């Protein structure tokens, strides 16, 4: 309270005597300067910290952007590759199919003939074996008494 009182006293003291407006302005300016506390060391460094922070933010944004773009690029590349491969496979299959001839009734007829020939060869083999066995079964087996 005393301090307040003294300040008030000082103010009153400055008011003593009439000052010109210019002088008043200068005085106000000086008073403002005097009233403004001196900058601390941290306050003096604040602009530098802000710039670094800003730079970090910019770098972060750039980093996120690069990562995002890279991911997008890789995914897009993979997608494109798959699509290309799929297209190629389809194309190849279409080409193979296009190169082959259509099936006809002759194919089935050929299969039927082959099956018939298979059974014929089996029968011929049996007949062949039967004909060969006749060799051992000769007339010489007969035993007619000679005395």
């Amino acid at each position, binding site marked *: 309270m005393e301090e307040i009182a003294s300040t008030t006293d000082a103010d009153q003291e400055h008011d003593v005597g009439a000052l010109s407006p210019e002088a008043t302005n200068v005085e106000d300016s000086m008073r403002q300067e005097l009233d403004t506390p001196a900058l601390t060391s941290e306050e003096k460094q604040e602009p530098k910290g802000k710039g670094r922070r800003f730079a970090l933010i910019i770098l972060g944004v750039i980093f996120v952007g690069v990562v995002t773009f890279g991911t997008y690029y890789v995914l897009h590349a993979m997608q494109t590759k798959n699509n290309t491969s799929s297209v190629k496979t389809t194309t190849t299959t279409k080409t193979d199919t296009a190169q082959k001839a259509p099936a006809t009734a002759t194919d089935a007829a050929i299969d039927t*003939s082959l099956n*018939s*020939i298979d059974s014929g060869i089996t029968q*011929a083999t049996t007949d062949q074996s039967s*004909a060969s066995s*006749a060799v051992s079964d000769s007339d*010489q087996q*007969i035993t007619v*008494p000679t005395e």
Partner: protein
Amino acid sequence: MTRRIITLITILVATCTLTVPAFALTSTEQTKLTTIISKGNQEIERRITALNEASKVVAQTEKLSAGDKQALTYEINSTVAGLTALKGKLAVDTTLIDARTDARSILTQYRVYALVLPKARLVKVTDGQIALEAKFSDLSTKFLQRFSELKAAGQDISTLEVTLSNMNIKVENASAISAAIQTKVIALQPSDYNTDHTILSGDRDQLKTAHDDLTAARADAKTISDGIKALTKK
């Protein structure tokens, strides 16, 4: 009078001397005769049974000409008839000489096991092979038709054509053997076998060669079929 009696006795002795040995067999000879007749009957029955089976085989032939089939069937049936008659004759033989002669004729006159049955079997083999060769010919025609279709579709069938040519050559070789053997075998008679006991052995070997040719031709046919499938849409 005395002269008449002497003449009569001489005639009687001569008659007995000539006739008694023909009818009067010793017990040993009678046993032999019975054995020959019994064994001969068994052999005749065995042959007749086999011939009846052979007759069925001949009846099953597909490609044998009607004339050849008829000739072979007639031969089998006449053999059965001859053996049946021989069986009746053998049964009433009263001498060892007759029985032995009849028993031996089972072999020499008929040659059932040595010639007739092998002949029927060989004819069956040739018939089967000729039928098989006809199937190959039919298949060859189908292959050519398919080749034509594949060519029209722009396919390269040059390799398949070479394989088909090889197949046809093998079939032709087999066909030549089958036809020649069939013609030769059908004409053979028991007397031919009596002259040459190895008369059929070469035929069997040749038919085996023909059979091998047909088996190889079948492999070619399979190769062609697979080749066609590889060029055909599924």
